[in-house]
């Protein structure tokens, strides 16, 4: 039994598509059997919500009178990149606010940055633009200070080079002092663990070999219709995988884009990580078309079938030793405690399963209502790609 994208889209358009979330599909297939379930189900919705540092947006301000070629710009005192056309800027999620002391008074608080500006933009808040220029014959204005909101912009296009990590490390701290990381605060001597994945709901864990998710796939990006525009940076598919082909470490990533004017602020949230920095938490939903039984079986992956590596972020992560303290499953992680080196250790998450579940349901409703059609990828994501390290070299003679 196999289906085509066109057949599935026809059913969606006529409001007859059978859509299940990545959580619902597990029991459904158990009950009905793969063959019958594959014939019945058209789409499985997957999702994730969590901090995704490699995110940002292109903004176009329109021209003032007289015109200006903005060469330096700050939005709410957060620096935006201006090395593109006159009134285009790129604002990155991890950019700090001007004069933020960072970790000068360790551990720093990092209260506001690029991710917060993006949240405020999507929430429709009025923000301040301050821009400077050297002035040219055709763009004479040399300074601008004005308030604006997202509706005043011509375009606000989120463009994220790396989102939706297929899987991720579980972090702990074997040292004698508290450490502050992008996976949160880690207490000394292995007193807590943190992870960041929606596990059985996560898009690339439900399509481990990138059979449907690829370049050109339509996605739900914080409520807007978005697209996978490229493989994500550090996409590294050639990694250790379980019997079910699900990777036990980072692996695949996606580069995503979408119109911020159509996003919902609930799913675009600035992040402040004490002692580390700022970021942006995003909600992403990806529909998986059930083209055949194999694709369906892969969407039935459970937390207990997905493993992750526990890494020491005090030593092994920064020093790149490659050492894994222990492996564990997402079922163990989500139970709230894991036994490590003979003691029960509390586990918490940076990623929100609750929000991911909500996104699965929202996307499901859009597809059921015939509002979201699926698109076939125009290019597959590389399946056998490794990642290079940066070797420090002297100047070429």
């Amino acid at each position, binding site marked *: 039994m196999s289906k085509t994208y066109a057949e599935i889209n026809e059913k969606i358009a006529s409001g007859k598509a059978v859509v299940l979330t990545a959580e619902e599909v597990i029991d459904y297939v158990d009950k009905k059997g793969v063959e019958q379930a594959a014939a019945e189900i058209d789409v499985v919705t997957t999702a994730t919500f969590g901090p995704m540092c490699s995110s940002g947006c292109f903004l176009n301000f329109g021209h003032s009178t007289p015109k200006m070629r903005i060469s330096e710009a700050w939005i709410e005192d957060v620096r935006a990149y201006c090395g593109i056309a006159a009134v285009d800027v790129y604002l990155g999620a991890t950019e700090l606010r001007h004069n933020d002391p960072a970790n000068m008074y360790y551990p720093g608080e990092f209260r506001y940055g690029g991710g917060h500006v993006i949240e405020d933009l999507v929430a429709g808040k009025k923000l301040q633009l301050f821009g400077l220029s050297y002035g040219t014959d055709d763009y004479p204005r040399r300074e601008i200070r004005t308030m604006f909101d997202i509706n005043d912009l011509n375009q606000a296009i989120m463009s994220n080079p790396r989102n939706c990590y297929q899987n991720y490390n579980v972090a702990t701290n074997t040292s004698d002092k508290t450490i502050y990381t992008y996976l*949160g*605060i880690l207490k000394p001597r292995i007193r807590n663990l*943190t992870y960041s994945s929606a596990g059985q709901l996560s898009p690339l864990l439900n399509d481990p070999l990138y059979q449907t998710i690829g370049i050109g796939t339509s996605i739900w990006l914080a409520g807007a219709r978005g697209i996978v525009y490229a493989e994500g940076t550090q996409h590294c598919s050639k990694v250790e995988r379980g019997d079910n082909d699900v990777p036990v470490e980072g692996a695949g990533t996606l580069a995503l884009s979408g119109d911020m004017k159509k996003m919902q602020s609930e799913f675009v949230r600035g992040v402040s990580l004490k002692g580390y920095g700022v970021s942006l*938490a995003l909600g992403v939903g990806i529909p998986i078309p059930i083209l055949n039984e194999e694709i369906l079986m892969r969407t039935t992956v459970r937390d207990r079938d997905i493993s992750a590596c526990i890494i020491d972020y005090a030593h092994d992560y920064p020093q790149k030793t490659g050492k894994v303290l222990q492996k564990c499953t997402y079922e163990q992680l989500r139970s709230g405690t894991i036994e490590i080196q003979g003691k029960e250790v509390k586990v*918490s998450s940076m990623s*929100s399963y*609750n*929000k991911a579940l909500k996104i699965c349901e929202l996307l499901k409703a859009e597809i059921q209502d015939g509002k979201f059609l699926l698109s076939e990828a125009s290019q597959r994501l590389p399946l056998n790609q490794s990642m290079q390290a940066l070797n420090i070299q002297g100047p070429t003679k």
Partner: protein
Amino acid sequence: MKTQKIYLYFPKSETDKPIICHLIRNYDLTINIFRAKVTPEEEGHLSLEVTGTEENIAKAFQYLEGFDVIIHTGAKAVHWEGQRCTHCGNCLSHCPTAALHFADPNTREVQFDEEKCIECLSCITNCPFGVCSSAF
């Protein structure tokens, strides 16, 4: 016997009075102070739990009302803004009393049980979304 949490705000004019001492001596109350910031010549904040008979607690409140002190009964000086919570649950392993907990293990919705909060403030340090805040 009854136990009640209160959060008191002292304006500058009242910070030099031994109010808590009188609550203990005159109204036979057991006082458990979670957190205090009362400095002479400045405003002050006090977050505490009082235990005593209902009658004595009522009298103590009457006594407090005689001063220019703002009494927030049943309230903590720690506030959890549920609307802004993303329910990641990152706070859970930092909360020593499980005041922050999952309401339902399946949906993993985070809830805050104010009664269990001892105002250690670790959630404020930890929450990536600034959902928890302190009145002082």
